[in-house]
């Protein structure tokens, strides 16, 4: 990830944004956020939280019913055309005509962005190569796998070298290999200076890619910060100690309480304490247990996850969340 350029004007700024639909239902309700130039901003939330509506407003496909939004310095309503010239868009489900070939679609996208024939053809080849679709470029998109479609979708969004790239749930439904390939490409783009606004319902994706994360629920931003900041806000890591069979659990609890505050634990053969110093707590705990003559089977330090953050700020867990992605495990001999 490239470092955000804090002195630059924001790539995306949103103030009091609202979007109501028929019946007065507000999909976006008083949203405020800023994305700095050059950063990857992860916009995290469950289905129906307002992510896609927000993105559709930011890419000029929907008008807000209140508030304002600027992208690349331009107002999304009054300067929509300027916004369109500066953004790349890959919306959900990779809406690509299955009857066209990848090469045709890229050339057409080039024409839509004002490129002349030779320029559009050259750019299409460059992008097919970049996303690894040169050999498949002459095949109809209907014959592509989900991962190939997503990569083509991304390439189409990049045809005109946009300043801000909007990716709406780019890896939904992809297998792990295709997902990793897309992540690499997003990182590479960001390294080249492209600001990325990424909506996702995958915690791991946000952790892997985003410089900062905004959590949306019920149409409003309920938390924002770097993944580390958000997790630190929820609480400290927990050290779990699995004792060897026949060990004295009560003695172990006494020994470990000197290292950190005890945490309730459901398992009788396990003791848990708060680990304010993270992994550095491990040798302290081992030493304390060793001095008390208690054998240990394994030790695990569990950090709060973004799912914990989400649960803390919304009261519910995130649908589709990947669990335990940040659990740091350290196995020690008994």
């Amino acid at each position: 990830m490239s470092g955000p350029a804090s002195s630059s004007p924001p790539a995306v700024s949103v103030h009091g944004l609202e979007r109501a639909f028929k019946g007065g239902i507000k999909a976006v309700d008083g949203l405020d956020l800023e994305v700095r130039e050059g950063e990857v901003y992860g916009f995290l939330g469950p289905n129906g939280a307002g992510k896609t509506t927000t993105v559709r407003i930011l890419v000029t496909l929907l008008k807000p019913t209140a508030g304002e939004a600027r992208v690349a310095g331009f107002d999304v309503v009054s300067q929509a055309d300027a916004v369109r010239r500066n953004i790349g868009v890959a919306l959900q489900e990779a809406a690509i005509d299955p009857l066209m070939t990848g090469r045709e679609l890229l050339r057409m996208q080039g024409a839509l962005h004002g490129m002349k024939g030779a320029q559009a053809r050259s750019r299409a080849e460059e992008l097919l190569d970049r996303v690894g679709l040169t050999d498949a470029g002459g095949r109809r998109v209907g014959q592509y796998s989900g991962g190939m479609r997503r990569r083509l979708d991304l390439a189409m969004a990049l045809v005109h070298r946009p300043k801000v790239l909007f990716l709406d749930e780019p890896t939904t439904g992809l297998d792990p290999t295709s997902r990793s390939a897309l992540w690499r490409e997003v990182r590479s783009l960001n390294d080249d200076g492209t600001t990325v606004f990424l909506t996702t319902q995958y915690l791991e994706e946000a952790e892997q890619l985003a410089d900062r994360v905004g959590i949306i629920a019920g149409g409003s931003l309920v938390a924002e910060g770097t993944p580390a900041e958000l997790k630190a806000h929820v609480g400290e890591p927990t050290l779990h100690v699995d004792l060897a069979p026949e060990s004295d659990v009560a003695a172990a609890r006494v020994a470990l309480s000197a290292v950190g505050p005890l945490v309730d634990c459901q398992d009788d053969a396990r003791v848990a304490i708060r680990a304010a110093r993270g992994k550095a707590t491990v040798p302290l705990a081992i030493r304390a247990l060793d001095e008390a003559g208690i054998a240990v089977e394994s030790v695990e330090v569990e950090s709060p996850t973004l799912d914990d953050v989400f649960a803390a700020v919304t009261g519910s867990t995130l649908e589709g969340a990947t669990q335990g992605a940040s659990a740091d495990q350290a196995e020690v001999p008994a």
Partner: protein
Amino acid sequence: MIAGVARESRVVTALGRRALSVQFRRAQLLMPTFVLPLMLLAVIASGTSAGRDLRDFPEVSSYLGFVVAGTLLQGALLSGLTSGMALANDIEGGFFDRLLAAPVRRSSLVFGRLAGTLGLAVLQMAWFLLVALLFGASYPGGVLGALGAAALAVITAVGIGGLAIAIAIRTGSMSLMQSIFPFVFVLLFTAPAFFPRDLLTPTLRDLSAYNPLTYVVEGARGLLQGDASLGDPWIGLAAAVGLAAFATALAVLALRDRARRT
């Protein structure tokens, strides 16, 4: 200014090329546009050719040559309608959003689709005239007459395409576009597509006077037969151009209205 026009021309060309090429890759759209009108022509030419012996039926070189103008009109109606269906498909599938997110004039999106309709109609009309010729139709109006008749039908296809695109933009529904398919035949048979106006029932004859397609088919027939008494080409041209201009404006307004409402 010139750069802007050139830029939008590239957009229209690219969208038109895409609309046309996709048309040929979708078998379910080829059937109604290239095959169905010829099937109807075969049925009508063989089943109702005795109508030529009716009193008041004009003197023509061949009955097939007389009804082929109706086939051109039917082709125009169907190619226009399939443009609307293809657009509704783009809207339902999300591809149209990709176009809307591009920095192009909204009107260019309509013109691009209509450019595809125009290209399709040119190929259609050439195909119909050629096949009918092979099966015995004669065109006393000559090559220029045939080209003129084809031009009238092509302009009409653009007009029908504009109407269909306006409906597609309004509804965004492929199934609704398919459901208006039968109305094509209402328009076709309320114009003197296969019989002279004088031989229609009085009600139908009165109704046909309000159908702009009446003047298009009569004009095309006059050109093909080289006989202005069968239809005034200039009135046909005025009807076709008027329909195309009105429908194109309607489609552009529908898109602007959609953009305003969303």
